[in-house]
């Protein structure tokens, strides 16, 4: 079967920037961050106080009470984003399509807020038992499974957990399945809900979370800001999407992966550069054709410096013609959902011809000497863009997009 072009026909998103695509794009395109004092846990017990939480969120507005029992917050977000994306796409899941459709999601920590609460009962409150739904709530594939069940999708359904690259690995896998004709449509993205005391304490111990805000590529950057939410895309073969008159947000044209094979937490130059080069090769495009990179850009000293060097390595002279921004400065680092939120931001940037900025930027860093679009969104037209995800564990995943 010849390779299909892969169209993005629907997008759904819930994050600290809002509960739908319009709200998220409004903030992203204005450089408005959704970072403020953590409310989901008692932040006074932490060395850092700020996070990018989904606010004014009431599960009862989205789910029946008996359904909520089965859904950890991360799986709720996954379903909400998938519902939005599917409705947005207008795709009808017929009996014939249902078995030829995939769901591929990413999540780093799964339903660990449920696990944390269950273990508090066990260890702190001396309860002799935990809730029988703890296992199905906690499993990292819960989001994918609930999407599959809600829409009756019975083709390939699975979850990829590669820390902060989870969503990019998931979207890349779904993209390849649609491109090769293995499936006729896919819902793909990532979801995460990391705000539990246990996990926040673990992040605190890593000493990579900013005590103030997230300032990627800025000389005074002090670390990442954790975020939560989900992003989902509907992928279809371009020909079929056009034939049914679907809105085409953009195309996924390439996917590249690599492993640092180096250190469990410290990034290398080679791994990220290789993943970007692999994405360009897979897309069949040259570095000079790319106008924008949505950076991994966590705001840690190590990532931003290494990513800058890796972009220079992969793009050579073209690196100075690129706009590079980190939208984590606004929606936070949503771990296994990061690539999904950033895919939405990247596709919207191409479609709306506006590059979302790197917010909270104060001072240029000679070690991060790319055009990082500081603070102000910028009108720009470009045909191709990349979205980078580099995970702890040295696992790198890069997506290449083309405007519609």
């Amino acid at each position, binding site marked *: 079967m010849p390779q299909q072009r892969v169209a993005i026909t629907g997008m759904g998103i819930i994050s600290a920037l809002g509960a739908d695509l319009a709200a998220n794009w409004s903030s992203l395109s204005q450089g408005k961050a959704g970072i403020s004092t953590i409310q989901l846990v008692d932040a006074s017990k932490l*060395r850092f106080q700020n996070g990018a939480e989904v606010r004014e969120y009431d599960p009862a507005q989205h789910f029946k009470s008996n359904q909520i029992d089965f859904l950890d917050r991360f799986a709720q977000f996954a379903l909400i984003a998938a519902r939005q994306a599917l409705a947005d796409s207008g795709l009808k899941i017929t009996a014939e399509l249902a078995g030829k459709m995939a769901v591929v999601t990413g999540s780093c920590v799964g339903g660990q807020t449920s696990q944390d609460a269950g273990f508090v009962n066990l260890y702190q409150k001396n309860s002799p038992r935990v809730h029988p739904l703890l296992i199905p709530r906690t499993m990292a594939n819960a989001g994918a499974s609930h999407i599959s069940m809600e829409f009756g999708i019975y083709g390939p359904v699975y979850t990829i957990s590669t820390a902060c690259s989870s969503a990019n690995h998931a979207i890349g896998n779904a993209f390849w399945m649609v491109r090769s004709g293995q499936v006729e449509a896919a819902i793909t993205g990532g979801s995460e809900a990391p705000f539990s005391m246990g996990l926040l304490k673990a992040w605190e*111990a*890593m*000493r990579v*979370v900013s*005590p103030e805000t997230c300032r990627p590529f800025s000389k005074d950057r*002090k*670390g990442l800001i954790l975020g939560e939410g989900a992003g989902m895309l509907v992928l279809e073969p371009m020909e079929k999407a056009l034939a049914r008159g679907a809105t085409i947000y953009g195309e996924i044209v390439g996917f590249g992966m690599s492993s640092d094979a180096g*250190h*469990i*937490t*410290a990034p290398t130059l080679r791994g990220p550069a290789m993943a970007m080069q692999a994405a360009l090769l897979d897309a069949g495009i040259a570095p000079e054709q790319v106008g924008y990179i949505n950076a991994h850009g966590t705001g840690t*000293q*190590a990532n931003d410096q290494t990513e800058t060097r890796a972009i220079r390595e992969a793009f050579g002279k073209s690196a100075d013609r690129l706009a590079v921004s980190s939208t984590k400065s606004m929606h936070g680092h949503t771990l296994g959902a990061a690539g999904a939120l950033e895919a939405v931001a990247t596709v919207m940037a191409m479609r709306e011809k506006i590059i979302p900025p790197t917010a909270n930027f104060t001072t240029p860093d000679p070690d991060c000497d790319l055009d990082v679009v500081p603070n102000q969104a910028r009108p720009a037209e470009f045909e191709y863009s990349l979205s980078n995800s580099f995970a702890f564990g040295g696992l790198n995943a890069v997506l290449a997009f083309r405007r519609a």
Partner: protein
Amino acid sequence: MPDNITEKVLDLIADTKRIPREQVSPTSTFEELGLDSLDAINLVFEVESTFNISVPDSVANSMTSVPQVVEELRKILATQSTSQQTPPE
């Protein structure tokens, strides 16, 4: 002659990095000892637990040698003992 605090820090480095105690000197840098950034964070965790103190991120992330660890540890312990002298209400 190294004092007790220095000796304890040297013990902790040898234990966490699993290297012979005699290879760790009071003047060693982390680089000489083969400690990377994650090893350094592990060491600070052990120091915090052993001395029952809390080391701020900015201090922990700036440590690159044994003398620095000892110096910062002394500073924190001194602050702590001053605050302990405050009579309870």
